């Protein structure tokens, strides 16, 4: 029989031990307690969205291997990312790296997403590598992930600044819209095909709402959904946004005979979202700019200068000066 006294001694011993070894216990976004020994110097990210947070927090040099968000070597986003991280070619993983590839980089920590990579935590725990599970898939998740990563990498101040920027924009847009009593235009968000649309449960829909729009697909559940053109005519969106990835262009919709019946096409309010490092509609820090870009398109009367905002954002959080060609993309 163990006495309470014995248990107390063990607990104190464990606590002292962890202080001596300098470990920190964090609760990740799957609710797991993870023991980490800072400073974390070598991190592997199996979650492309989380990878982008490391860049915004200025700790990209600690990333030793990572997946990205639809990044192709040699593409314009690749060149942009190389200019803030010359080590990119060596750490870029095209697909999810295997257990051995990850272990070969001798990581202190692995970042993963429990939905995309359900087995990751057990897989690496068996080799003594702690795994932090992140879910930066919506506004709440973004807040949690940013704070958590700030704590893990010892850059909490910068994480707070990044979140404050986001919150300030959200508040500013909400105030604008309510003060001026702006109407909410009906918005459709199109993906990699003209008839593939973002559902009501996706981050893109959250962005539309925060930007003062009325997402027509709010009722749709799940992930991307394929719809019939008749349904789009019924929704009759006033503005159409097209995801930055995929081959769909505004011209495809503007020149199609059947789409002519749609208000957004008649008014030529069909826009392809920009991409600098990662696409602006994915829940990475750059989506904070995506929000402003959407608001500028939905409510031109607000006079939001997306180019100026983007210039400040990339300079402050990435130390990156937008080149001319990207300024054209962002302002387009």
């Amino acid at each position, binding site marked *: 029989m163990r006495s309470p006294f014995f248990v107390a001694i063990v607990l104190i011993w464990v606590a002292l031990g962890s202080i001596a070894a300098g470990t920190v216990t964090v609760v990740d976004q799957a609710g797991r307690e993870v023991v980490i020994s800072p400073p974390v110097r070598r991190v592997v990210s199996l979650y492309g969205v989380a990878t982008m947070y490391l860049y915004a927090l200025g700790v990209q040099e600690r990333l030793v291997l990572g997946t990205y968000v*639809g990044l192709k070597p040699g593409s314009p986003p690749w060149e942009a990312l190389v200019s803030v991280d010359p080590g990119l070619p060596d750490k870029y993983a095209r697909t999810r790296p295997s257990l051995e590839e990850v272990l070969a980089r001798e990581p202190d920590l692995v970042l993963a997403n429990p939905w995309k990579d359900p087995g990751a935590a057990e897989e690496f725990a068996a080799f003594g590598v702690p795994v932090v599970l992140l879910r930066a898939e919506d506004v709440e998740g973004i807040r949690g992930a940013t704070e958590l990563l700030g704590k893990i990498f010892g850059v909490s101040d910068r994480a707070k600044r990044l979140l404050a920027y986001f919150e300030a924009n959200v508040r500013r847009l909400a105030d604008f819209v309510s003060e001026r009593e702006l109407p909410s235009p009906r918005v459709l968000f199109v993906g990699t095909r003209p008839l*593939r*649309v973002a559902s009501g449960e996706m981050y893109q829909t959250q962005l539309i709402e925060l930007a003062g729009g009325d997402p027509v697909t709010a009722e*749709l559940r799940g992930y991307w959904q*394929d719809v*019939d053109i*008749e349904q789009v*005519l019924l929704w009759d969106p006033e503005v159409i946004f097209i995801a930055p990835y995929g*081959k769909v262009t505004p011209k495809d919709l503007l020149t199609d*005979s059947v789409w002519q019946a749609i208000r957004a096409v008649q008014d030529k309010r069909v826009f392809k979202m920009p991409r600098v490092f990662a696409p602006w509609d994915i829940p990475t820090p750059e989506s904070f700019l995506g929000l402003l870009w959407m608001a500028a398109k939905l409510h031109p009367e607000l006079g939001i200068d997306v180019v100026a905002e983007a210039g400040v954002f990339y300079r402050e959080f990435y130390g990156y000066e937008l080149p001319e060609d990207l300024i054209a993309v962002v302002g387009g």
Partner: protein
Amino acid sequence: MKRRGIWPALVLFPVAAVFVSLFIGRYPMGLGEVVRSLLFLGGVPPTSRALILGVRLPRALGAALVGGYLAGAGAAFQGIFRNPLVDSRILGVSAGAAFGAALALLLGIPWYLVEGFAFAFGLLAVFLVVLVARRFGGSVLVLIISGILVGSLFSAFLGLIKYLADPLDVLPAITYWLLGSLSGTRWDAVGKLFVVCVMGAGALLLLRWRLNVLSLDEREAVALGVNATRLRTWVILAGTLLVAAAVSQAGMIGWIGLITPHAARALVGPDHSRVIPASMLMGAGFLTVLDLLSRSLMASEVPLGVLTGIVGVPAFLFLFMRHLARGGGWR
């Protein structure tokens, strides 16, 4: 088992299905609008006219053609292989076409060439199968084994492509394509389906009399003066043309080619000269109805492959069981 009046009913089925499709959809339109649009009368809002003539009509016709081709090819394949469990997958056509489309999507080839790739690789797969089979005597068994081998090879390549594809843009395109859909079928697609396949469908309909001979034992066929291997090759090529065209337009729509011929046999008896046209008509009507459901049930489209399974399998299972209960065989 012959029944009077079955042929008019079989012809009426796809025609009625296409006609009804014009009246139903997510976008509310009055009967008058549809009728006036069809008769090219005035007084119809341009949106309604564009929807009926430019979207609903070509899509319904596309569904009918694809359904007819898949079912017709399935009936022909079942006949020449003397096996009720055979459909286009047995010869690797579907796997080849799927690989071709995925390859085109991975390489970022313009979308209008994706169909061409699917078509070419579907033909290539069957060409390989026939080549291998001929090398080893061309018996039905060798043909089926080489079909399974070639099909597996292309499936493995397809898996590799899916593994390499960008999960953000390319992989969804491949997955969508593999699930099968007639969404976005416009007149250009109907034109392609029609032109390419008149040859295939025509050939099958012309050869259908001789197919009965292939269902016999091979030695009996030779005794009747029919070159079984050559006839089989022609039927395979014609069927492949149909399947490759259907798959390249609408993606992988499983199952219709397998079970429709059984239903057709239940209605018109085992004679191939009847089974092939009956299968085509039933497949055409059936896929048109399913596609109508696919686009009008919910705000988002229900994948066609899902519907063919859920709605079709029980319905045809019933038909098939009844046929068996009455003592009918599969031939």
